[in-house]
């Protein structure tokens, strides 16, 4: 008994030492050869711009949605992009923790709130106008600390087998009606849900918003952790109605086939807060703002080519004028555009206090 256990343990020890040595990954293997300087002009304040054909990106957007575009970028520019993929909020927390020591040059976020958090801490450098001017000003930062990349609409997802089209709510207010008691799925901790509530507050006023959240709470909402989980539940037939972002449906449809999905999307009437548009965006970390490759990466995401990629591959709204939205989506102009800064954390905090008051979030 002892000998065999001993041999096993010894093998384990040797094995780990070997593997530990073998998988020690080089921290940074940046190609250093000098090539053409980036075409993007650096803002004046930046010290000694450099282009070493290497840039580190923290991406809160999923690998399968982003990597194909990055591959094209690398092919065209010769710039290597090393990417850390994780959730947007986790990466935001990590970037806040790293502060000026962050190895990252660029942060790509799923939602504006995470960008606002970094902006508030002064971690972002101001972006040059030739980047920020490309994007529809309603969908980007107010102070050029980050730039909007794509838009996603809030939608109602419904189970087409248990809910008929004429029953569907025309507005956010109808969602809290008694006919939907216990039948609506929400993800109150999710940034995009909170943006919707903020939009409601801005469009209809704080007391109306308070009433709406109170009505929602009384109506026994089904609490989920994520938009994706709500969609799955609706598609499984266990939830009649849910509030999510539109492009989740297209992603599910692309793996399982649109005709196989019983979950369908519904846009509330034009201008209703339940159809607010949220944005994804990018910011340049101040500590790396001398990196021309980083600026080139950001401008590529808002180039015509980059924007077209998101339309075709992720079914999102382009934010650069002149690029057509994906087929089948209502025009961006029909959707609610509240006149507020999506990344303004002070506004976000008021929304969270409202949700907290009714016990929807911790």
């Amino acid at each position, binding site marked *: *008994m002892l000998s065999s256990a001993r041999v096993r343990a010894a093998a384990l020890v040797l094995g*780990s030492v070997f*593997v*530990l040595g073998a*998988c020690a990954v080089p*921290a940074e293997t940046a190609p250093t050869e000098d090539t053409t300087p980036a075409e993007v002009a650096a803002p004046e304040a930046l010290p000694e711009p450099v282009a070493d054909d290497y840039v580190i990106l923290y991406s809160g957007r999923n690998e399968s949605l982003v990597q194909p575009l990055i591959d094209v970028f690398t092919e065209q520019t010769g710039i290597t992009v090393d990417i850390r993929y994780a959730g947007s909020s986790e990466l935001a*927390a990590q970037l806040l923790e790293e502060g000026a020591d962050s190895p990252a040059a660029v942060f790509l976020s799923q939602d504006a709130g995470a960008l606002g958090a970094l902006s508030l801490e002064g971690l972002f450098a101001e972006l040059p106008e030739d980047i920020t001017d490309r994007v529809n000003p309603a969908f980007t930062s107010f102070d050029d600390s980050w730039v909007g990349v794509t838009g996603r609409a809030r939608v109602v997802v419904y189970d087409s087998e248990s809910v008929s089209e004429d029953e569907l709510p025309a507005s956010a207010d109808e969602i809290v009606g008694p006919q939907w008691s216990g039948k609506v799925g929400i993800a109150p901790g999710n940034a995009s849900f909170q943006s919707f509530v903020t939009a409601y507050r801005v469009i209809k006023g704080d007391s109306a918003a308070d009433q709406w959240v109170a009505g929602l709470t009384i109506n026994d909402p089904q609490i989920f952790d994520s938009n994706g989980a709500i969609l799955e539940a609706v598609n499984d*037939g266990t939830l009649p109605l849910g509030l999510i972002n539109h492009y989740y449906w297209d992603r599910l449809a692309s793996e399982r086939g649109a005709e196989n999905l019983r979950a369908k999307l519904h846009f509330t009437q034009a201008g209703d807060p339940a159809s607010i548009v949220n944005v994804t965006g990018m910011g340049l970390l101040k500590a790396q703002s001398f990196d021309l490759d980083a600026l080139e990466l950001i401008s590529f995401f808002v180039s015509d080519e980059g924007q077209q990629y998101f339309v075709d591959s992720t079914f999102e709204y382009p934010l650069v004028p002149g690029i057509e939205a994906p087929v089948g989506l209502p025009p961006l102009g029909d959707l609610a555009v509240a006149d507020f800064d999506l990344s303004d954390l002070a506004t976000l905090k008021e929304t969270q206090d409202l949700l907290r008051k009714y016990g929807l*979030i911790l």
Partner: protein
Amino acid sequence: MPTTTPTHAPARSARASAVSHPPAWLVTLAVLAVVTVSIPLVYLGVRASGVPSSAWGEIFLRPLVGELVWNTIGLSVAVSATAIAMGTLIATIVTRLRIGAARTWLLISALPLAVPSYLASYGWLVLVPGISGFVPSWALLSAVTIPYVTLPVAAALRGTSADGEAVARTLGLGPAQAFWRVTWPQVRPAAIAGGLLVFLYTLSDFGLVAMLRFQTLTWGVQQAYSASFDRSQAAVLAMLLVVIAVVVVAAERSARGSLRRTTAIHSTKEPLSPSARVLFSLIVALPPVVGVVVPLIGLGIRLGEATTLRTFDPENLLQATTTTIGVSLAAALVALLLALPLAALAARYQRTWISTLEGAGYLSNGLPGIVVGLSLVFFSLSVVPSLYQTVVVLVFAYAVLFMPKALGTARASIEGVPADLISVARTLGASRFEAWRRVTVPLALPGLGIGALLVAIATMKELPATLLLRPLGSSTLATELWSRTAAGEFGAAAPYAAVLVLIAAIPAMILSGVRSVAKEEM
């Protein structure tokens, strides 16, 4: 809470007498180990201090806090109680009753360890859409954590004799009573220590409760990070988890008792009627069916539903597999080295402060992975910035996260080395170190191996800290699995899920065999 001195002194354990003092080097190493695994606690303290103490009350009195604390405690107590009861029952069945193919059964009952809880819940949701709330969360978490009790209890049963129970039966006790009076005291330390790991696992689990929509504190803490970007507030909320962990660690200390060891001379297995045999087989099979078979069927169904799959890249799968194996073996080794001095100290010297020190070593294990990940970002950037986001810090983070999984078994196995043997070695002229090297280590090795394997399995499944700390461009099976499921590509995720469960099953199978060889051969 005070730690109690066991009332029945261990008959032949190797506890040093109260007069001898622990050597300074051992104390130093043990304290260092505790400081190391307490990095997340220090970090939480630093971040929580960003909230003025006057605001703490407001945070704790929020409408949802009470409900989440209640949910968290209820779930953790229910799951650990179930794991202790079922794990002890199953271990008894496979080691003491003639159900046939005992080794195979033990191996099968270890398999749920290999299934990440988020995967188990996802698989169930495919088969039974809409399940949510306490009952499914309790049932599934129990199924995947029962082996934390089954394996150490089975090992303890194999190390003890069934003779006492036979005597008790002769004296007129029924089988249940005989077990309770004679055998339970012998396996109680192992069962309770396993139960503690289960409790901490449940406390810190996020993936399963999020999917089954049962709101716990860890869910709330995760949400605080993801929506408010207010790390200080999240840290204050995470403090509640620390408080719960402190209480349960202290409770474990007083409930554990100490090991009473008898020597197994031979063990007579109870003969069974065919119907009893079927019944007992069903009991043993229950957790693996709930925790492994059903989830895998669910994943298979999703794979079948996928009409288009992201191109499958075998090279990527291979690379993720090698990295996963590499870091988990390294983490197992480092965690064991970290646990050893503390385990040795706690096993050999009975002092209140030592017991407290050992208890402190468990606390971080009840924290959500995101907290531990961020604490290591904080720590490594301020202490060893050049190692940040290298495999060194990643492995270190795993060791910090999972050292408690090695601690209990390591302590118990060192405790179980008879003092007589060490005295004999010393009488024969061996130095203290030589006695340690030639007597204690070899005898304790199987127990140490159990701890190391538990760490390896947990590392393979770890996600949140890995995402923050992995070297750029490298990935593990868990991160690749996450990457695909987060994009809704459940079909494309299936191969990664399958390989993850497969390679985590290997240490689980080894675990089921540890300490069994000699007995089987007799």
